[in-house]
């Protein structure tokens, strides 16, 4: 028996535009947040979300329900595209610097958008900045585990790496973030 997701995909493949709208509606938030957590920028996250959905639309036929859930497939497509794009442009390293520019531009806004309200949270801002300092592998692992809330097994399947490697990466990422936090505390003398 087909799940509701599979039915949506089936209808979409038959040319039902409303089914495609249902898919976009259901996963835009998730994909957008994935992009935002990788890049730390709202404008880049929006661009990435569009590109990811274009890719999904073009490759919808290649989805096989036996290989896993539709959500995992979407996340896999999204993750691969994000990694490819940033490997090509080498912007992972530049993101932290460019974020400063974004913050400066945003200070000109007359009314804060919902994004800005969220970013005003000190811990969220710290975490976003700290994530940009991690290597792509560690960042990817911690995003999937602690921000996306995925299980180790799911992450291993998604990244096509052994579960032990996933655990090791997550531990290293957490240690690095903890050390950054400790360093920040020592510098600023305030609790995050």
């Amino acid at each position, binding site marked *: 028996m087909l799940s509701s997701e599979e039915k949506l995909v089936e209808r979409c493949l038959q040319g039902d*535009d*409303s089914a*495609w*709208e249902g898919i*976009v*509606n259901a996963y*835009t*938030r998730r994909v*957008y*947040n994935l992009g*935002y957590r990788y890049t730390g920028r*709202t404008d880049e*996250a*929006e661009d990435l*979300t*569009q590109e990811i*959905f*274009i890719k999904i*639309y073009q490759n919808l036929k290649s989805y096989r329900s036996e290989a896993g859930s539709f959500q995992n497939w979407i996340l896999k497509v999204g993750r691969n595209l994000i990694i490819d794009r940033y490997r090509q442009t080498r912007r992972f390293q530049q993101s932290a610097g460019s974020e400063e520019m974004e913050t400066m531009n945003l200070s000109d806004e007359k009314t804060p958008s*919902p*994004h800005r309200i*969220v970013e005003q*949270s000190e*811990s*969220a801002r*710290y*975490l976003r900045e700290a994530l940009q300092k991690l290597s792509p592998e560690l960042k990817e692992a*911690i995003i999937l585990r*602690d*921000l996306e*809330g995925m299980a180790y097994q799911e992450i291993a399947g998604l990244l096509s790496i052994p579960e032990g490697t996933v*655990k090791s990466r*997550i*531990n290293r990422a*957490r*240690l690095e*973030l*903890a*050390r950054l*936090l*400790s360093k920040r505390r020592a510098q600023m003398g305030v609790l*995050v």
Partner: protein
Amino acid sequence: MSCPDVEERLSEYLERALPAEEMARVAEHLHACSKCSSLLEDMRTIVLSCKSYPMLEPDVDLLERILLRTSGRPRTRTLREIIDQYFLRPMLTRRFAAGAALAVLFLGLLTVLARPHMTTIATFLSPREMIHKMDRGVQGLYAEGLRAYNKKNEWQAQFTFFKNNVFHKLGFWAEQLDVPVQTNGKQKSGEPRQRQEKAPSQKSSLLLLPA
């Protein structure tokens, strides 16, 4: 257990995913090592921050852009969005607020000023009076219609009289100008001979009178 060994297991210790024996050994080390216990606390803070990290809401326009770039079909709007787009958003503007405030002010002033004449106004606006007024209005309209109809007949009669008069005059002038009246290509009997021989002028020959 050394510090690097504990660091290696810290994440799993935090998640209580280690075997019981290892959990006890790590706990023992943490009890003795302030550096590692501090690291564990920082790690706990990080994990909790991640868990409470809020999900951002994407812009509604993003959804629209995605659909336009893929299926090419615009987003289906809900009734609430339609109301918001066509009614609430245009209404919730400074200009509208200023207009509404002025309207309220005007109505307030009007109420204050009209209070002494409230009985008269109430009588004026009573349903009975309104129906009476409407009845009178309809009757007036009917009378006006009748008057206009009569007027139309009068104008029509005047026009017919004028038209007949003009044609009569034209016939009279044509006779005076000595234009032969053509009736089936023959001249009228009783016309003088000299007049028959005289060639009519080009101008007058064009004038054909009704038989």
